């Protein structure tokens, strides 16, 4: 129990206390990892811990079944579930692969669990499930859906209508079929408990008067993120009746804001003295960003990654005044010059994400970011610990400098847009640069590598990245040795995802027991063959070894398979409940 409260008393001494006292002590230990450790101490602690556990995190919904979850934690109140593997975000996993919510809601409902919070990531959610959810859990307070799909605004209508104590409805990056219905109208007039409402990802029309009435009767509303269909004057009215907002997501504005509406907006914004976080701004004229000048010094979080219409110079003009910024997500149109200004202005910066505005290199623009911007940020922002950086070029020298400037990185993700691109000055591989990062950043938990990389970078990662939990590899490495260095070296590795790299059966099969210590492994467009995967499945019955086929129209016929055939997509994960029954035809579980 590294981070748990170090209990001075030994177990046997503690058992003189009644269970309620021990339970009360456990209440101070919220981290699920620590609680997992506590439950292993003794039988009585296991039992006390079980009944007092209210929050459960399940990183892979197929690792356990809903029934077993409920049996162990009957007093569950808050559940987090994750479904599809991470690369599903980038179109590498068929839509129907799995991750269905329904069995979970069904089981929780039947067992009458007092569910209050549900957080889902990459799950398939149906309107039916949402309706069942809304009717089954009287005290339901919070629904957070991230990158989910399968439902429509009808499902949202059920939640709005039936969850009397709803505090949070947070929809992030979901694919929702917008039936242009009146889901916002479905919040009853008596509903006044909303604290957080985010529907930025909805593509259709929004009933503005229903929204305004809802906001007006929600005095506790702290976070509001609207979709594109909420124009400037509506936004002004919303902000006027919710000056207590802390977190605002802005919709789509007309191209030219009339001076009068602009004045009114600015006046409303000035009153929002508690506003700390700003996002949205897709299809927005640059002048509208300036309406937020009055409060920009208060901002700690700014997400302009959808503001594709705002040019670099306007972004810079705004960001340079956000001196308290801790989180900044922005497009690379800000340029190296812009990042240099961020580095000199935003000394509190902890997390930076720079996204590509021209992902397929279709424009002849020179304003994208390079290694210069990255070095500037590393030099100027001492508190920086998380970075996601898309760029067109990189050098080892820059990475070595970044490592020296920022040994505190927890998350380091670098994506050079052109695969296999070497150091653009020396033409060498970027092994040394990434090597420097893993050597300096002793607390590194997440790493994504890119550019030209040989097996050597993986040797470094295996040697130095002792705390690494998640590693993403694309178009890298030379031989199986690369993957083996990682599997043998990174003791805390939980998730490994690899695409388009020459790792094959030898690496896959070398240490089958390793996969029991990990949540999952993804390999696509690598060298592993069907035969190799079959051998793995035979030797590791505690794993689900899934092959996702190109041809979606039929399972592989057993006698037609060629074991030397390379597997297109492999996804394997540990599980205590064996083969899942809901796999579609394009998935074969070995």
């Amino acid at each position, binding site marked *: 129990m590294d981070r748990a409260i170090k209990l001075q008393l030994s177990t046997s001494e503690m058992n003189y206390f009644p269970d309620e006292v021990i339970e009360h002590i456990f209440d101070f230990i919220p981290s699920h990892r620590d609680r997992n450790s506590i439950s292993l101490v003794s039988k009585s602690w296991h039992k006390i811990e079980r009944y007092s556990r209210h929050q459960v995190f399940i990183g892979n919904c197929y690792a356990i079944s809903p029934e077993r979850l409920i049996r162990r934690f009957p007093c569950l109140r808050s559940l987090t579930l994750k479904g599809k593997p991470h*690369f599903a*975000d*980038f*179109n*590498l996993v*068929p*839509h*129907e692969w799995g991750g269905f919510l329904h069995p979970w809601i069904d089981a929780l409902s039947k067992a009458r669990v007092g569910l209050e919070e549900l957080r889902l990531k990459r799950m398939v959610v149906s309107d039916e499930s949402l309706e069942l959810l809304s009717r089954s859990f009287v005290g339901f307070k919070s629904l957070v859906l991230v*990158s989910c799909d399968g439902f429509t605004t009808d499902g949202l209508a059920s939640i709005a209508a039936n969850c009397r104590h709803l505090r949070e409805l947070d929809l992030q*990056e979901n*694919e929702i079929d917008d039936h242009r219905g009146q889901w916002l109208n479905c919040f009853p007039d008596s509903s006044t408990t909303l604290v957080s409402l985010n529907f930025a*990802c909805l593509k259709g029309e929004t009933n503005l008067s229903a929204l305004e009435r809802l906001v007006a009767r929600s005095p506790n509303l702290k976070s509001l993120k609207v979709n594109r269909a909420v124009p400037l004057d509506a936004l002004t009215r919303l902000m006027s009746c919710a000056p207590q907002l802390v977190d605002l997501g802005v919709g789509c504005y007309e191209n030219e804001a009339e001076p009068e509406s602009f004045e009114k907006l600015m006046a409303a914004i000035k009153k929002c003295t508690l506003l700390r976080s700003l996002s949205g701004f*897709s299809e927005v004229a640059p002048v509208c960003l300036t309406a937020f000048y009055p409060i920009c010094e208060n901002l700690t979080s700014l997400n302009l*990654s*959808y503001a*594709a*219409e705002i040019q670099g110079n306007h972004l810079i003009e705004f960001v340079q005044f956000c001196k308290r910024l801790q989180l900044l997500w922005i497009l690379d149109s800000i340029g190296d010059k812009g990042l240099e200004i961020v580095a000199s202005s935003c000394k509190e910066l902890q997390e930076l994400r720079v*996204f*590509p*505005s*021209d*992902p*397929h*290199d*279709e424009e002849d623009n020179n304003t994208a970011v390079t290694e210069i911007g990255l070095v500037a940020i590393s030099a100027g922002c001492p508190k920086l610990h998380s970075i996601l950086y*898309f760029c067109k070029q990189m050098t080892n020298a820059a990475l070595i400098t970044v490592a020296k400037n920022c040994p505190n990185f927890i998350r380091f993700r670098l*994506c050079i*847009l*052109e*695969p*296999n691109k070497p150091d653009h000055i020396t033409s060498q591989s970027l092994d040394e640069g990434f090597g420097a990062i893993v050597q300096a950043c002793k607390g590194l938990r997440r790493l994504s590598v890119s550019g*030209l990389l040989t097996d050597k970078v993986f040797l470094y990662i295996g040697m130095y990245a002792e705390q690494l939990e998640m590693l993403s590899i*694309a*178009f*890298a*490495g*030379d031989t199986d040795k690369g993957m083996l260095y990682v599997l043998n070296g990174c003791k805390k590795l939980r998730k490994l995802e690899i*695409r*388009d*790299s*020459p790792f094959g059966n030898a690496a896959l099969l070398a240490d089958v027991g390793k996969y029991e210590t990990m949540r999952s492994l993804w390999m*696509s*467009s*690598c*060298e592993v063959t069907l035969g190799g995967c079959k051998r793995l499945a035979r030797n590791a019955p505690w794993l689900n070894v899934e092959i996702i086929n*190109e041809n*979606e129209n039929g399972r592989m016929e057993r006698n037609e398979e060629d074991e030397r055939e*390379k597997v*297109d*997509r492999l996804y394997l994960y540990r599980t205590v409940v064996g083969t899942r029954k809901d796999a579609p035809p394009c998935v074969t579980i070995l």
Partner: protein
Amino acid sequence: MENSNSYSPYSSSSVDSTKPSPSESSVNLSLSLTFPSTSSQRETSQDWPPIKPRLRDTLKSLRLRQRGYNTALFVKVYMEGVPIGRKLDLSTFSGYKSLLENLSHMFDTSVISGGTRDRKHHVLTYQDKDGDWMMVGDIPWDMFLETVRRLKITRPERC
């Protein structure tokens, strides 16, 4: 419209295999299939660089707007044998699947693209910017939008 001066690393289920590949190759570009027109995957199934769908869509519509498409993309649609045509805004469709569904509805018949020709269904064809008549569904949706000039729903036997 191919970007012949830049690398486009589509892997597996995307684009046709005539895209230029990188000169140094420890890259394993697996079989590039012709884009399946009845794919149940996202139609714009590009998987590199690793950005999420919402950002991808935002940047794509920005690009279309900047190229003067004004986001709307109206083309004429004729059904063979019917003299009066219709006009359709292709930008409102997310891909081939929704286009075919909509046309089937509009013309009250079953319209399909290249894949399985079985003499019962009408087949959708298009005239590209070179003036040639082609089967709909062979190229990625984005490319199709850039090259399509008009649509024709042909009688089944013709193809």
